[in-house]
């Protein structure tokens, strides 16, 4: 930017035009900022309202939906949640999410390693199959998955809720790409020293693959924590409701009768906290990494 000013010839007219260009740029910058700020408000304000409303009474929430200070402020929505099945929903979401996340990280890295480094007949075919799977739209599979889960006798159980979610073609793909990008020489010397294939994978390759594992972790955690459709078709008992399913039923069941917005918004605020925390921990990684990703 400063190059423009430096190369400007020393005639008065040109100087004047440079000065006006600077002024224009400053004005433009101010406009950009106010514009960005306005959009940011649109993106953030709904979440602020959600949090604030969860501390309101129901009449207050209905009468003053925009007010940013609850009057009176109350935590009764949270108490109501605690007295409901909310604890069960949290428990189920935690169980399912942690199982799915850790198993996916393990299985994806195993499969990715095999596809990237091990040489065996049928490897290409296996890889093609996994890629094809990514092209099948998830919603189309709801009924098929339900049929299979029932056929296998794992309907309405944690098994039915967890195992089908372990299919993660994209994760396998990410791991394979990553393993192909790291040097093979370390593994070779370990092999010459007589280490077994699993040992090479476990103690040499996995520690090097940390960035990719973190990526799978983030994706899987977020994906299974926010998953709804699969839990609808894989279980029916109220005791197996996850947060998404419980809150969705809370939201749709009450449509029409008393609105209970503070309660619902308290629930949706609480269920957002884990993914929000995860996001802020890995923020730099999520934002910058993918933004700068294509620079090679």
């Amino acid at each position, binding site marked *: 930017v400063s190059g423009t000013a430096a190369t400007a010839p020393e005639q008065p007219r040109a100087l004047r035009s440079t000065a006006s260009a600077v002024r224009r740029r400053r004005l433009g910058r101010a406009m950009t*900022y106010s514009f*960005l700020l306005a*959009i940011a408000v649109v*993106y*953030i304000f*709904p*979440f602020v309202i959600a949090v604030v409303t969860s501390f309101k009474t129901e009449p207050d929430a209905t009468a003053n*939906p925009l007010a940013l200070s609850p009057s009176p402020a109350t935590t009764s929505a949270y108490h109501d949640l605690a007295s409901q099945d909310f604890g069960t929903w949290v428990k189920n979401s935690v169980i399912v999410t942690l199982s799915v996340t850790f198993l996916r990280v393990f*299985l994806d890295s*195993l*499969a990715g390693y*095999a596809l*990237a*480094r*091990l*040489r065996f007949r049928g490897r290409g075919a296996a890889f093609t*199959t996994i*890629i094809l799977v990514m*092209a099948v739209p*998830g*919603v*189309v599979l709801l*009924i098929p998955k339900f*049929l*299979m*889960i029932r*056929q296998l006798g794992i309907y309405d159980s944690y098994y039915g809720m967890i*195992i089908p979610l*372990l*299919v993660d073609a*994209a994760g396998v793909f990410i791991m394979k*790409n990553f393993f*192909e*990008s790291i*040097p*093979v020489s370390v593994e070779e010397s370990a092999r010459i020293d007589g280490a077994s294939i699993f040992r090479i994978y476990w103690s040499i390759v996995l520690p090097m693959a940390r960035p*990719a594992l973190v*990526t799978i972790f983030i*994706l899987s955690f*977020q994906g299974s924590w*926010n998953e*709804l*459709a699969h839990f*609808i078709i894989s279980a029916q008992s109220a005791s197996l409701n996850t947060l998404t399913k419980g*809150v*969705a039923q809370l939201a*749709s069941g009450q449509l029409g009768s008393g609105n209970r917005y503070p309660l619902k918004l308290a629930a949706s605020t609480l269920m*957002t906290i884990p993914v*929000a925390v*995860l*996001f802020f921990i890995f*923020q730099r990684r*999520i934002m910058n*990494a*993918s*933004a700068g*990703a*294509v*620079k*090679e």
Partner: protein
Amino acid sequence: MQRRAAQERSSETVMENRPVKRLVRRFREPGIRGHQAAAGWLFLLPVIVILGLFLVLPILLAAWVSFSDWSGNGSPLGPNVHSVGLSNYRHLLTTPGLDQSNFGTSIRNNLYFVVLVVPIQTALSVFLAVLVNRRLRFVGFFRTAFYFPSVTSSVAITVLFLFLFDPTGAINKLLSYAGVTGPAWFYDPRGLFHVILGQLGVTQAPSSLASGTFLGVSYWDWLSGPSIAMCVFIIMVVFTTSGTFMLLFLAALQNIDESVNEAAALDGATEWRKFRYITVPMIRPTIFTVVTLGIIGTWQIFDQIYTGTQGSPSNTTLTPAFLSFTTSFNSNEWGVGAALAFILFGIIVFFTVVTRLATRGQDHVPRRRRFGPPGGSKPGRRSRLASAVSGVLR
């Protein structure tokens, strides 16, 4: 669903952050190969078993159900279940009745949803990406703000929007300050185009449009536009996905060599001309990727409908994915529900293929405009995941 696909896509690019060097990856010592074959299959076994059990076999089972009269009792493979040929498909496509008109309505609703969401979210995310690609202070804050909705679950967002767009909610309160009486949003079944036509004095269907029907829905109703209730879902989905796609575009934008823009600026190019003749051609592959992902995602909208309206008011937020679910699980017409799922699959494949055909030959950065350092550009700079997916879909 859409968001998940996009997020997978976006963080896949994380991997390419490090210098990607393709190195010799095959061990050629003969003695080791036997070990490797066994270990390779062993490593792949869990993934393959799960894929087979919960993907391949279910599809086959559902295909059978879509040709059968199974009513939900017992196993679909039991002796009392019979093949009914294409009857379930005919029920949806050619036999007049409730199934057919519901199906037609759901297609209309989703079609308007796709046609509006995909261009808006693509344009908005390009716009946001261009804004936050500048060298500004606090730019990290703005990126975070725009991306945050993408992190939250569709259930939480839907609950929030149910509150915001309540007839007495925040949005209508805001509108009332401007002297506008807002509609009942989620409770308003009127089609947007019908409302506009009504403003122009057209309240009755012209007889030519009222009589004819397609898929059990009159031509006049096909032209209704999205209902006001559906418009809220459109706003909501654009709100949640624009951040994800913004990151994809940001990655593409940062790949443009800054000296090109500077050269153009020296030549006196305006911001708009720089955007039109430098930025757009350079990010064209990403635009196509985002449009494709958008189409695949928007045809699958389910969570928001389930949480928000369950298809009401007057079926105007009914979508094929949700209809397929209720037809099977609530009405026990499993054959029809499964058939609907396969038709939806067909629709998604069709739209994806059409998009690919329409953009064939343009989905790479044009060679002459490739300003990057020589050798630094791989064929098509988009991520390998995207090219693999599109390769499959092509």
